[in-house]
């Protein structure tokens, strides 16, 4: 018993406002986009005939296809980088830092930027990456290079650098949570069963944190796939990912083309999330490998 009766009408009504809000603002617009993406004809109105022309046009364009593929590839690279970085940091913070005070300090230093604007943090990379940027100045100062490297700002590499700093926290957070949930006795039990540390890690610790890894990867996937702001600020107008294409079409008043890209983007994300849920059933933590 609690302050809410199981399956009571009250519990139902309490959920209604939030449900309506989410339906009206998230579900309806997305369904609408799927519909709009099928509109044919010349005028932008619900009366338009339904057709796959918009999709055919999109897929006929090699540049767009390449863009879609490179978005996926870029996201995969970032997932790998943030995954490895994030796991290492999470492992260090939870397992290697002995002093609780230091652990708190380092953990805060790690997560606090999450609470500040991603946009500003993206912009903050601009003075770093430019031809006269901090990195180039440092490289020239140390003599690593004589002429500044132009490859940082307005490049894929620069975008990746900025995004790695933005999203590693998302890969690490769920892992920290899962690592904290592992009883120390489990690792000790494995050790007394003749498992050396590396084997303890692969056979006990890693499988038990796997749901955290997957959730973190999903978060990074979703965020990088949808991140057009960092691409725009750090990449300038020279680089685009799928979401930038949405923006581009929108600004050109090509709503139907924008909808096509939006639908494709949403499809990518659903596939990604569903695939992740297949690999690890998040609701049933700690399943055997």
């Amino acid at each position, binding site marked *: 018993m609690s302050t809410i009766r199981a399956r009571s009408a009250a519990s139902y009504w309490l959920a209604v406002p939030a449900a309506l809000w989410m339906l009206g603002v998230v579900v309806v617009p997305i369904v609408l986009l799927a519909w709009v993406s099928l509109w044919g004809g010349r005028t932008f109105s619900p009366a338009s005939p339904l057709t796959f022309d918009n999709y055919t046009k999109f897929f006929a364009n090699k540049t767009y296809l390449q863009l879609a593929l490179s978005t996926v590839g870029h996201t995969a690279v970032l997932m790998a980088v943030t995954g490895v970085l994030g796991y290492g940091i999470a492992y260090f913070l939870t397992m290697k830092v002995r002093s609780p005070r230091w652990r708190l300090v380092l953990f805060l230093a790690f997560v606090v930027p999450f609470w500040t604007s991603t946009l500003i943090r993206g912009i903050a990379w601009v003075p770093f990456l430019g031809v006269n940027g901090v990195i180039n100045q440092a490289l020239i100062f140390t003599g690593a290079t004589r002429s500044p490297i132009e490859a940082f700002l307005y490049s894929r590499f620069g975008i990746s650098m900025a995004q790695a700093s933005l999203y590693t926290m998302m890969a690490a957070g769920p892992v920290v949570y899962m690592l904290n949930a592992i*009883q120390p*006795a*489990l690792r*000790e*039990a*494995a*050790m*007394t*069963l*003749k*498992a*050396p540390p590396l*084997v303890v890690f692969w*056979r*006990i610790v890693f*499988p*038990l944190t796997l749901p955290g890894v997957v959730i973190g990867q999903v978060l990074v996937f979703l965020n990088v796939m949808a991140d057009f702001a960092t691409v725009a600020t750090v990449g300038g107008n020279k680089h685009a990912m799928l979401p930038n294409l949405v923006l581009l079409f929108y600004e050109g008043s090509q709503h139907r083309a924008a909808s096509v890209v939006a639908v494709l983007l949403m499809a990518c994300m659903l596939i990604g999330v569903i695939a992740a849920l297949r690999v690890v059933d998040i609701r049933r933590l*700690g*399943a*055997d*490998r």
Partner: protein
Amino acid sequence: MDALAQAVREAPATARPQLDLELRGIRKRYGGFTAVDGVSLKVPKGRFVCLLGPSGCGKTTTLRCVAGLEDPDDGDILIGGKEATRDPPWERDIAMMFQDFALFPHMTVAKQVGFGLEMLKKPKAAIAERVKQVLASFEIAQLADRKPANLSGGQRQRVALARAMITEPRILLLDEPIGALDYSLRETVMLELKLLQQRTGISFIWVTHDQNEAFSLGDLVVVMNHARIEQQGSPEEILQRPATAFVASFVQGNNVFHGRVVRAGDGLLLVETACGSFLVPGRGPTIGSEVSFSVRAELITDLLADPHLNRLAARCTAVEYFGSLRRHVFERPDGEVMKVDQFGAYAARIVAGQRVELGWRPQDTVLHTGSAE
């Protein structure tokens, strides 16, 4: 003479009576707190040893030092006669059963039990065969494909035991292994474990705060308090001759007195306490020294006769029943509680509120001689 000692020292381990475990002056500090302070212990082959003591006495830390999960600051650990103080846990000839069993939540029972053999790089088929055998012998064959989340407390205990025993270690370390079980299960499990230990000849080091467990299971009971060993010996020795006031008061059924020796001679001491003067057999202490002694509750009587030279008048405050015993609780003149046990089968002679003259024989009194190694 020196040459002989040298020869004995250098003789191969097998030539001497072999010890499964030897601790020499183990010390472990955490910051300013001393968890284990100079613990020494010899465990001959195939013994059932119980480390008994209140929580925080250092018994679990001692066990974890043996397992290699803690590094002692000082002292030596010899397992099977071999120096192992700095060996990592996975290179020690031990296995351990943890308090909450520490089953791997992501592995099935079969995988779990086979884990130790897998680590020893045994061939797959051999592991499967052995796991099957062990599961059958622990009567958990039907659970082979289950995960720990779907097991009852008793089943988990068996899985944990099977997992630890399958590698046939020299020593099995058990940290409060039945503390997580229902009371109704404990008796049976204790009996099974005792039989298992006797059958396999593996030394068990069993940590507990429950003296019933310690006295019914242990060949050797080691009583610890404040990071030190207070007394070690057979259950009988500890019950009949507690070496310190702590052991006497920790073990049920002792009445402990503190006092000063006022007269000594003929193997008898006269000790003056806050409850009067009593005769205590003993030779060591000199006149004026502070001593403590105890007398077991069942050796005190209200049916006084000539041999009952130690006498004490007290008021009975309560009468309680413990199994076949009837315990009379008295208030001593010094305010402490005094317990007098009688067989419940005999009719009660004392009722609560009654003032009674009690007595016991001097030879039933045990002088505490300090920690005896």
